[in-house]
Every structure is written in structure tokens, then in C-alpha cells.
């Protein structure tokens, strides 16, 4: 069985074209880019609008030029939910992005410092998800993770959203049982040195199975690895996981979670994106003046 990967959490906005080339070669067919923060606070809603427009515009074009479908989730991330310069204004513009063709969910939303403001905007965005019939991708705190998971779950349950439309991300050994018992999907970010390593991830899969398990690289502008999912797959193979079990974790689970209501489908994402180096986005090309006829297919 040919390896096919739906990479459900990577911030390609901050990656280079070599990453796309390597990811495609390693079996990645779809990347999902959750809206998140940019390493430093934004000072006005206009910065969010331009960023959101990039996620559905230029970045999508850039990805497809390298043979990878690009979808995204939109949202007000928990860190900036605390910032009164932007939080309410982002919530006002958010609905008009939720019906865009490549938007398959709301995220990253959730809790970071677990403040009252974070909870307020997390809850409000869950209501938007219900109204627009979208799943949510939930960022969980990196400090006091277990309590953060429990609180994220508690708020989600109270909001009325179906738990099979909730993906709790950045999980680890401490959170697996909590999430599986809740009926939500469980996401693990395989990230160098922090979060989960490929070795730990394989052990989790051996212990808890593949049902409702999703793995991602969460690659961004930090020290991170866009190939951490295929590297984990290699370790899964060594550990004796079948092709089918691997396909469940890196394809069937994320595709089943995000592809609903005409917003993408397995058929769409198995089709090759148009690889046409002459194509431009608003007149701009990834080739930066290089000759399209000399580019490899």
C-alpha cells in the first residue's frame, strides 16, 4: 500500500519551498495549516485579515505548486485571545472566513494560560463551529497540560458540540486516556526535544491502538521538523504496525475528521493537484523569474 499522509497541523507560512519538496517526496498529499500566532503579538485586526487571506490564497497556491493540497482552519488563537487590541475585532471578521472553500475547521483555539478571556473566546468559537457545522482543532496548554486538557474538554462538552467534532491537540502519555474516554479525537505533535518524540509516539500507539489517533509535526518558525510524521511512520513500520494501521493514523483518521459537507473529500485529496509552473497567484509565481520549462515535474 502506498503511503499517503494527511499532515493535520503544520504552519507552512513559516517554512521554505524545500520543505514542500521533501514532504511531497515523503508521501504528504495534504497539509492542514491552522491559523495561529506569529511569534510576536499583532497590534491590529488588519494583520489578522492579511494573514487569513494568505492562508486561503498565496500559501494554498504555493503548496499546490509542489503537489500538496492545502487546507486550513481559521480562528483566534488563545494567546492573542488575551489581547484586547485584537480579540473582539478578530471575532467580528471570523465568520466570513468560515465559509471559504479551503477552510475545514476552526482552530487553533483553546487554552494556553487558562485565563478567563481565553475561556470566553474558546467558548464563543465553539458556538461558531456549531453554527457553521465545522470541527474544532484545540490547542492545549504546554504548562499544566493535564488540567488544561480537562478544562478544554469540560468547556467543549458544556457548549453542546458533538465530541467527535473535537480534536484535542498536543497530547502526550498523560492525556491519552482522558481524551479517549471523552469521545474526542486525540492529536499528538511530534516535535524535536519538546512535546512528543517518534519513539514515545510509537509506544503510545502500541499501548492505546490507532482509533481516534492523529499525529502531526506542528512545524512552524521554531526548531521543528516537517518530516516528523513520515519519520514516525518509519518507526511504526519497524515496530511491526501494518500498512493498514499506518494508513488509519496518517490518512483515514484526519481525512474522516476534516472532510465533511463538501469541504474536501478523500477523492479530492487523492487527486494530484495541478502541477503547472506557469500558473500564478494574483500574478505572482513561486519561480521568482525562473524559466517554468526548466523546472522538474
Amino acid at each position, binding site marked *: 500500500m502506498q503511503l499517503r499522509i494527511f499532515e493535520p497541523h503544520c504552519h507552512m507560512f513559516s517554512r521554505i519551498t524545500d520543505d514542500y519538496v521533501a514532504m511531497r517526496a515523503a508521501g504528504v498529499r495534504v497539509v492542514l495549516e491552522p491559523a495561529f500566532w506569529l511569534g510576536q503579538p499583532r497590534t491590529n485586526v488588519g494583520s489578522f485579515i492579511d494573514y487569513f*487571506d494568505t492562508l*486561503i*490564497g498565496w500559501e494554498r497556491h504555493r503548496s499546490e505548486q509542489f503537489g500538496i493540497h492545502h487546507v486550513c482552519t481559521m480562528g483566534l488563537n488563545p494567546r492573542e485571545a488575551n489581547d484586547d487590541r485584537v480579540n473582539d475585532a478578530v471575532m467580528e471578521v471570523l*465568520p*466570513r472566513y*468560515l*465559509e*471559504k*472553500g479551503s477552510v475545514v475547521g476552526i482552530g487553533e483555539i483553546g487554552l494556553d494560560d487558562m485565563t478567563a478571556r481565553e475561556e470566553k473566546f474558546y467558548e464563543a468559537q465553539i458556538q461558531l463551529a456549531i453554527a457553521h457545522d465545522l470541527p474544532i482543532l484545540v490547542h492545549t496548554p504546554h504548562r499544566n497540560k493535564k488540567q488544561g486538557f480537562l478544562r478544554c474538554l469540560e468547556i467543549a462538552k458544556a457548549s453542546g458540540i458533538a465530541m467527535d467534532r473535537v480534536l484535542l491537540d498536543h497530547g502526550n502519555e498523560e492525556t491519552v486516556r482522558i481524551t479517549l474516554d471523552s469521545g474526542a479525537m486525540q492529536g499528538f505533535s511530534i516535535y524535536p526535544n519538546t512535546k512528543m518524540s517518534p519513539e514515545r509516539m510509537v509506544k503510545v500507539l502500541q499501548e492505546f491502538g490507532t482509533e481516534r489517533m492523529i499525529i502531526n509535526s506542528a512545524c512552524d518558525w521554531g526548531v521543528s521538523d516537517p518530516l516528523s510524521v513520515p519519520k514516525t511512520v518509519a518507526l511504526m513500520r519497524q515496530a511491526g504496525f501494518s500498512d493498514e494501521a499506518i494508513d488509519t493514523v496518517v490518512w483515514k483518521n484526519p481525512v474522516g475528521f476534516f472532510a465533511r*459537507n*463538501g*469541504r474536501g473529500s478523500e477523492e479530492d485529496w487523492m487527486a494530484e493537484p495541478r502541477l503547472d509552473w506557469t500558473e*500564478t*497567484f*494574483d*500574478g*505572482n509565481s513561486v519561480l521568482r523569474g525562473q524559466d517554468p520549462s526548466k523546472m522538474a515535474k
Partner: protein
Amino acid sequence: MSLLCPTELEKLETAHLADRREALTDLRAKGPAGLEVFLAALPRRFGRELLGPEVLQDPNRIDLRAWRRCDLAAALLLAKAEDALLEKLFQQGDTDERQMVLRALSARMIDDATRRILEAAHRQNDEAVFRAAYADSALAAMALDDESLDRGILKAAFLGIDLGRLIGVENRARPELSAMLLDFMTEREAAGRRIWPGSLELAAHAPCVGVRSRILGDLWHGEDLRRYHAVRGARIILGDHDDEELRDQLRLRRERERAPFVLAALG
């Protein structure tokens, strides 16, 4: 006035969107402002399929063969929307949404908002958006002033859009525009690049100095399409006044022409 009248819109709705009546009712109930959120959903709800080959085609007004089902839905939903909303939808929209807004302009009264949106579409580097604004309808020819329309036609020439799809522009031909088209031809030829084949045909509607000579030259050009448009240009000039040399050259060309579509143009 508008390019599509309410009766035509009603007929189009019945013919093409009868299976989506419920979705239309739902969106109408949300009001035009609801489209600020749901315009992006129209391709999913109504489809991107073309309306088909049998749809309304009026060579002097509009050709709906390039319209998708979602374009028609947008036209129906935006026919009576406020100008400000339309401009906002265009500014906030992605490629699909901008195309829908531009096509919806044909269902509305032509006014200053029409002009502003067409000019905004001209500034995009997105070819699909530009085509939705300038091709397949007489909207640009009817709405824009000389200066804006000249810029639009030159951009269409730059993008290589077929002259036949720029409906109504021949009625707006001016010697000033013809001079620009000839300059563009010269510039392209100097650079060894392909020229826009429609240049001489459009320029023949309002010839400036040099148009007639270039038509005489292009009647003998090696490229079929250039000869075709030269023939059409010559016939336009002859329709206006007699010109013995042009007539003779057309006759000689007819004797030697092999390309069927050029022969058909020669008559």
C-alpha cells in the same frame, strides 16, 4: 439600465437552479448582508459547473456560456443589494467570490459602483477575475469612460483575450485607442513576441495613421490568425468607404488563401 432584465433572471433561475430552490430561499431569507458570510459558500451549495452551451448568448450584449451555477445564484441574490455591500464583497472576496460579484453586475443597474468595481478588477493581477469583468459581456463597454476602457482593452490585449469576447468594444473604438494598439504591436514585434491578433480588426473601426498600411501587410502574414483579423479589418474599412487597393489585395489573397476560416472571412 442593466444587461439582464428581471424576466430573464427569472427564466434562468427556473432553467438552471430549480433543484436548489430551497438553498436560494434560505439565502434570500438571510438578506443581502448574509452574503458577507455565505457568498464564499455558493460554489459548494450551487456548484461550479457551467450553465451549458444552450444558455443565453446575445452577441451585442452578453454571453452566459462562461457562467457557472454559482455565478447565476450570486446574480439572483445580489440583483438588489446595496452598492456598498457589493463593493465590500468584492474587496473581501477570493478569486471565486470576485468572479461571482463581477458577473452579478450584469443583473444590476449600471452605476458608479459598477465602474469602481470594474476598475478594481482591472487592478488585480488575477486573470480569472479580469476575464469575469471584461469578457463575455458589454458591461465594460457600456459602463467605463474612454480612459478606463482603453486601459481595459490594452490589458485584454496583453493577456491575449480573444477580441470576439470583448463584447461591444468596437462601438467605443477611437483613433487614440487604435494608436495605442499599433504601438503595442510595434513594441511586441520589436521584442520578437506574439502580437494580439485582434489589434488591427479593432483599430479598423477608428483607424489612425498606419492602420491601413499594417492591414495591407498582415493580409500576407504567415500566421493564419493575423491574416484572418487583417481580412476582417479590411472589410470594416471597406464598409465605411471604397478603397480600390484594399479591394484588389483582398481579391489576390482570396486566390491564394488555404486556411478555411480565413477563406470564410474573405467571403
